[in-house]
């Protein structure tokens, strides 16, 4: 290896280091450091009790166990729903639809509205005697107790989150569909494939990578849902929307129980890592 090549290689590594540095610093400060801090906080000695005392206290608390159950139920409903809707919209809006740009913009628009603002608007819309029920009553339907009944509150949160989420995830899938060569569709068409078979054998395989990203990122973001719950229900009614992030927040900043808040965060990180690992294992990500 000549000194010129060596110098060029060193320069390349330095450039790479500089380019990567902001991301690495941000990752360390915003992701790794809080995670380490949560682990340390959850293992803080509580008098002469064993080191796992905080976790034992947390898992003996029915409120926390309920929040685990609610979080898992929420994830099972919201993730398939958002991804299916985003995929359906992406496929539909990739076809020759009149005013397609307008539709895409309208669907993406909720992303631009701050979460708190959209939650406040939904709070008014979903009131027992609010505008949505007024419309329902006007067409002869009964009122729905959107946010005040344990049987409908979690679904209402799913709707509020999906209002924003579906448009956002759709954009990634639209971009993915645009990357699929048109010739594949033409070939499928010549072979007599209809819309369903084109979707099943051309679109879906072509979307494997963006779909994998959307699946993982959507799952993680839905585990971290907080603002709509805090503004609309504060975890109620009767704990039916008490997602784990709300539990962690209340423990840390309402009752000041930093130890169990940290332990709750560690449990959340463990669940997210486990689910994402499972997703990577079960779904083929390579071409």
């Amino acid at each position, binding site marked *: 290896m000549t000194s010129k090549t060596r110098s060029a290689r060193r320069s390349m590594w330095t450039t790479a280091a500089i380019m990567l540095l902001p991301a690495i610093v941000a990752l360390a400060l915003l992701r790794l450091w809080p995670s380490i801090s949560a682990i340390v906080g959850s293992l803080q000695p509580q*008098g002469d009790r064993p080191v796992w005392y905080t976790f034992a206290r947390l898992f003996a608390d029915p409120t926390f166990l309920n929040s685990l159950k609610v979080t898992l139920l929420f994830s099972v409903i919201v993730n398939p729903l958002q991804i299916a809707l985003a995929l359906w919209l992406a496929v539909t809006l990739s076809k020759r639809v009149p005013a397609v740009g307008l539709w895409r913009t309208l669907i993406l628009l909720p992303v631009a509205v701050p979460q708190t603002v959209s939650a406040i608007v939904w709070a008014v819309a979903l009131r027992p*005697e609010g505008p949505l029920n007024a419309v329902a009553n006007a067409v002869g339907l009964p009122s729905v107790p959107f946010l005040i009944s344990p049987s409908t509150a979690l679904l209402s949160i799913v709707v509020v989150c999906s209002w924003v989420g579906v448009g956002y995830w759709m954009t990634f899938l639209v971009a993915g569909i645009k990357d699929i060569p048109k010739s594949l569709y033409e070939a499928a068409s010549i072979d007599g494939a209809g819309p369903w078979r084109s979707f099943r054998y051309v679109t879906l395989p072509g979307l494997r990578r963006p779909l994998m990203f959307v699946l993982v990122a959507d799952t993680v973001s839905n585990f971290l849902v907080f603002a709509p719950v805090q503004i609309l229900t504060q975890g*109620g009614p009767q704990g039916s929307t008490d997602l784990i992030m709300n539990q962690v927040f*209340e423990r840390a*900043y309402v009752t*000041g129980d930093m130890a169990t808040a940290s332990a709750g965060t560690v449990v959340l990180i463990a669940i997210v890592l486990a689910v994402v690992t499972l997703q990577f294992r079960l779904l083929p990500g390579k071409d």
Partner: protein
Amino acid sequence: MLSAVLAVTLAATACVGRTSSTTADDGARIIRFLHSQPTGTFSAAIKLFESQHPDVRVEEQPVPFDDLNAQVQARVGAQDPSIDVFAADPPRVPSQASRGFLTDVSDDAQAIGQAVVKPALDSVSWNGKVWAYPLWTSSSFLFYNRDLLAKAGVQEPGPAAPDRLTWEQVVEQGRKAQQSGARYALGFDQVDRYFQLQPLLASAGAGDGLTGAGGLWPDVDDAGWRRVMDWYAGLHSSRLAPRGISPQQMPEVFASGQLAYFVGGPGRIGQFLKTKGLNFGMAPHPYFAGGKPVTPTDSWAVGVSRYSSHPRDARAFARFLSLDSAGALATTGKQTLPPANKVAYDRYVAQTVRDGGRSVTGFQELLTHELDTTARHRPRTVGYVDFETTINKTFSDIRNGADVPESLRAAQEQLGQLLQRYRDLDPAGHS
């Protein structure tokens, strides 16, 4: 090149670690005041304070009511020196003092005792020490919409303590008003909050919900609580009172003429007087037939952060808002809560009576009567925050249709677990 990379890293870290400046460009010391009042509430008081202390500047940091506790917990709990003074809710004082958030101001106990009304000094004392400066006191009244009552042919309640209606009468008359066009019979200002509902429980003979050593044992699952909560549930399930509306939005429901009766504090007087077309009056807070009259009390106090970067200036400002009658009175222009300061209290009452005219007939005598005879403090315990958070959610669930015995049983069990933490820390219950 590597040194450049290192410099960039250090600069980035330095930016993250930097806190906001505590000194102005002209050399004035900046103190920051965290509170949850509407913008402008303290403008006049701050202006007056700064005119007397030209080398100090006060910066307000107002946050929504529901976020204040979390902000104090997060920022003062992290020893953030940029918060110097913060609004403290008296029942939370023991919790904040035990966590080391508040400066011990016991050396001002005598001065506070002389300047403010007696219940206010009690409200900021804990474990034999004084932890904050009382700012306002409070009570609760039965506001009524004159037009809605007249339309229903219901006689207006009298303004004096002996004219006090029972809850049974209020519901009956409210129902009549509803049948004659009012959207709802009755609404509560701080709906689903312990501050508002403790007097109802006490009026029916139920306990405060906390008992035992240090007030660290829950007691919310008994016949008294079930009786009052059944009444509260029935009031909302029968649509006499609205469901699904947050406390922040309740005053507006009365101001917009949808409620015949509204149970609320003196802080609403100013807002209602400014509402065009609202023709209202005030009567004593109701009680349950066969029970005793009880009213809520205690409002905000001002605490000095243990981690203040300018503790002397911070304390001077807190003293000014509480002990200086001009300073205390200046805090009542926008937020019409009665100041705890005795001199300012008298002036505030006179001013309110003058501004309110017919709407506040008898206010002076009634407020003083309630503070002297029917006012009840909320429990003072380190576990209060856990208690209030849990029980407020239970009230909300009950309002929205949850089963009363099951909700109270669940709250009792949850509180037993939450308060265990404090009992473990202080088994003798000295807290």
